[in-house]
């Protein structure tokens, strides 16, 4: 049998690209857990939320290592998603007149590109709302450290109904994206065994609970503005 070119497949093959998609997706799932945990603090204890946010905003390890890795993770995930989508479209240059996709696969698995695009568009707004705001505060306006500002800033963000609504809609789409994506990444990594059923159940639980918690936080702050 012909010896394959060493290592070239790991970079160029369809399986390798899928693995990149799966690993970056799983990394973002772990990030979501951290994110939702800190956000929940804003509902339970504003002081702890301020402390945690200040730590995340000023700890050099978080700022100069974790943050760039996270941004790279997001970029890799969506750029690879587009690359795969373009290739997949090319793989069927002539489309069917009649194609019954719903007969053999769930909607969420067939529309990852659309749920992903909505989440990506939301990330644009989310970055503008919080990340751009932080960068301006710290590096452009060079304002002094204020460990108590985060809670008020967050609650204020959810004052307008339109922003709260956009966030909630994005969380619904995030739920759909996770519903397929989380378990799917295990299949891509070669895990399909006696644990797969458990992974699927956990995926569905995760896909509902995490976005629901995010949506709850947004709605909670919208309904409970700071009055003084």
């Amino acid at each position, binding site marked *: 049998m*012909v*010896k394959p070119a060493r290592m070239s497949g790991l970079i160029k093959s369809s399986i390798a690209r899928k*693995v990149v998609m799966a690993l970056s997706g799983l990394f973002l799932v772990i990030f979501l857990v951290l994110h939702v945990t800190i956000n929940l603090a804003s509902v339970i204890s504003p002081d702890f939320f301020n402390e945690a946010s200040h730590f995340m905003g000023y700890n050099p390890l978080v700022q100069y290592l974790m943050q760039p890795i996270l941004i790279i993770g997001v970029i890799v995930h969506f750029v690879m998603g587009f690359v795969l989508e373009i290739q997949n479209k090319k793989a069927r240059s002539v489309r069917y007149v*009649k194609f019954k*996709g719903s007969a*053999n*696969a769930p909607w969420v698995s*067939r529309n990852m590109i659309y749920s992903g695009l909505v989440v990506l568009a939301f990330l644009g707004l989310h970055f503008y709302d919080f990340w751009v705001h932080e960068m301006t505060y710290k590096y452009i306006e060079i304002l002094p450290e204020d460990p108590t500002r985060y809670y008020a800033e967050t609650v204020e963000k959810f004052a307008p109904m339109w922003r709260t609504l956009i966030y909630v809609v994005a969380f619904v789409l995030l739920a759909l994206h996770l519903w397929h994506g989380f378990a799917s990444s295990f299949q891509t990594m070669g895990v*399909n065994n006696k644990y797969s059923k458990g992974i699927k159940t956990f995926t569905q639980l995760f896909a509902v609970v995490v976005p629901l918690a995010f949506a709850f936080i947004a709605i909670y702050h919208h309904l409970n503005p700071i009055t003084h």
Partner: protein
Amino acid sequence: MKLYLKIWRQKDANSKGAMVDYTLNGVESDMSFLEMLDILNEELISKGEEPVEFDHDCREGICGTCSLMINGRPHGPDSLITVCQLHMRSFNDGDEIVIEPWRATAFPVIKDLIVDRSAFERIQQAGGYISVNTSGRPVDANAIPIEKDMADQSFNAATCIGCGACVAACKNASAMLFTSAKVSQFALLPQGRVEAAERVQNMVRQMDLEGFGNCTNTGACEVECPKGISLENIARMNREYLSATTKG
């Protein structure tokens, strides 16, 4: 039974095709789908028209030749069968039936409903075999004890008939189920382990070269496969591939 057929007609690989409407009377419910097409073709021939070209051979669900997209599903509405095993009792009088060829860039249309599936053969040729010394004293395959469960899994993978329904059903026209079945049938047996690393890399490389899409784990292929080939095979191929490439 009276049927309203919409069939893809295409003169040759280079021509532009189109859907053509036909009305067919006198179809019996115990006819097979291919017999129904035979009757249509007899009518067309008697009228001096070009018959509809479609692939078929064994007509008992084992050759993998018949390949039709029927009302948006490979091999039609029923499960675990090929088109030749589909009977007209699955349809009703007055139904409209849309019949198209498999659609994949790697499976170009040759004429009407016939596509060129030699891409599958090239994937198979890239590694879907074991090297056995046939001269002198070949070792009897049965001399190597194999766990029953492994033998069964290997046999299940080997029941793939290479019909291409997985590619046809996949929204990405991915050939992962076919390739993974062919990788798995060897990977599960000691005779196949000898060249396992080269095999999986070569077959995946060929699969990519043919222009099939990427697997997004929708599971459509598994549902539409007439032989019930499982997605477990794709996970196994991914494991084999990752292990083979990372070890160099």
